[in-house]
């Protein structure tokens, strides 16, 4: 029972970070139709940055903030390169993000080396049903829920958020209204960077991060994001939590080395299911 509970809670927490990465995929895809292959870079850079900042004696809070903002700036830069030129085909943008994600390895190794880093944020643990659960897990879950609530308010209550939704919903009509789709796309990339950065800042104390952690994070985030067809942040949250818990149980009860395979299998199952639900009629219409 106590093992079950601790797997569940740690799974939920890790799932939350997947959901944050996933919501970055969703924000960018909704507005630009680009699947951002560099999405895994944002949490890695944020985690590595926070680790260095703490090493230089910066206090908690400030270090994390710098890590998240830097990830947001990198998101913006990726956006400028991938979609900044008007008329860039979506597929070209996608390949550019893939290239930038790989290029980032070089920078990361030069700046931080190739060894995994970690740091502690919240110390201490709490006893739940006989299981010792670190406070950090609850911090991750709480921060994620607050972020998703804020995202929901941003997209449905603010004028800028509605303009982003309008670009996602009908880019032609948005242009007629004078909404610049490239600017909105860049905003989405910056937002994707911030969300990925937050995920990295939160997950690094739980799972050490190295330059090549982006593959696992991006794969898991993508698996969570396709739950809502890359278009619904809430479906991505559900997908992330499900994936996190599933991975934790597989790791706990079967073998920790199967974690990545769980995400891969999930991606394949969801995609086959979604493809089978698309009727011939809707294919012909679209």
């Amino acid at each position, binding site marked *: 029972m106590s093992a079950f509970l601790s797997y569940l809670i740690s799974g939920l927490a890790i799932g939350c970070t997947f959901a944050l990465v996933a919501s970055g995929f969703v924000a960018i895809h909704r507005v630009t139709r680009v699947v951002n292959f560099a999405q895994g870079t944002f949490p890695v850079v944020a985690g590595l940055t926070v680790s260095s900042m703490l090493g230089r004696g910066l206090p908690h809070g400030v270090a994390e903030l710098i890590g998240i903002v830097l990830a947001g700036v990198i998101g913006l830069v990726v956006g400028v390169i991938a979609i900044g030129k008007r008329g860039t085909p979506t597929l070209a943008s996608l390949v550019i993000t893939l290239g930038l994600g790989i290029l980032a390895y070089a920078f990361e190794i030069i700046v931080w080396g190739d060894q995994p880093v970690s740091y502690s944020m919240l110390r201490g643990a709490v006893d739940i049903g006989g299981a010792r659960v670190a406070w950090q897990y609850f911090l991750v879950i709480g921060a994620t829920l607050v972020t998703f609530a804020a995202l929901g308010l941003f997209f449905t209550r603010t004028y800028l958020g509605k*303009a982003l*939704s*309008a670009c996602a*919903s*009908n880019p032609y009509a948005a242009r*007629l*209204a004078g909404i610049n789709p490239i600017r909105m796309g860049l905003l989405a990339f910056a937002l994707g960077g911030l969300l990925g950065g937050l995920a990295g800042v939160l997950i690094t104390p739980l799972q050490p991060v190295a330059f090549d952690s982006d593959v696992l994070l991006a794969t898991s985030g993508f698996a969570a994001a396709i739950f809502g067809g890359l278009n619904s942040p809430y479906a991505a949250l559900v997908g992330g939590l499900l994936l996190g818990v599933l991975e934790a149980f597989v790791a706990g009860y079967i073998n920790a080395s199967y974690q990545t395979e769980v995400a891969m299998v999930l991606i394949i199952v969801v995609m086959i299911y979604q493809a089978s639900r698309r009727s011939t009629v809707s294919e012909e219409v679209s």
Partner: protein
Amino acid sequence: MLEVTDLVVRYGNATALDGVSLQVGEGEMVALVGPNGAGKSTLVNTLSGILRPVSGSIEVDGRLAQVPEGRQLFPDLSVADNLRLGAWRSRRRAGARDPRRIYEILPDLERMAKQPAGTLSGGQQQMVAVGRALMADPDILAVDELSLGLAPLVVADLVRHLRELNASRGTAVLLIEQNARLAFDLCERAYVLESGTITMSGSSAELSRSDAVARAYLGGLTDSEAS
């Protein structure tokens, strides 16, 4: 108000508009009729800045807003949000985003304010599209295919609103229509666009008496014969 001179627009090697010139005066209602593929939507998208002309000029004295063909709403956003986004260009001006000023002109929209635009009927959606364009406080409204796919009664209601708008605010209208009878009925002047060039122009009365126009657009009968 609107002065288009020798406009040429190409898609790759295909010439969609080949030297189009037309004018819309202040507070005037002008029709542009023509068959499918004549370049009507190309023209209006060029006026809106979505397409770039190869040559020629467009001079607009004031603001131009487009009611696009097929409504082109944001289906998952509410009617009120669709309207608000119509004011994007003037969003920083006080009160610019308030959809209530549109409810005074199109009162039916107030009732549907909270409904997702995608759930409305075609006529209601067309009204939202008109309202959204009006949120930009246009001096000239380019309406692309107002009547397409709508029932005659619904079209009559929309036409009444356009007339009122023109009379009370002096908003000029460029009406792009396949339904020539409707266009001639609403507008004093008209242009006929065929294969990317203006082939005829004049007062609606003159044009509707012309045999060529009658054959092509009025089902073979000139207006005097029809009545």
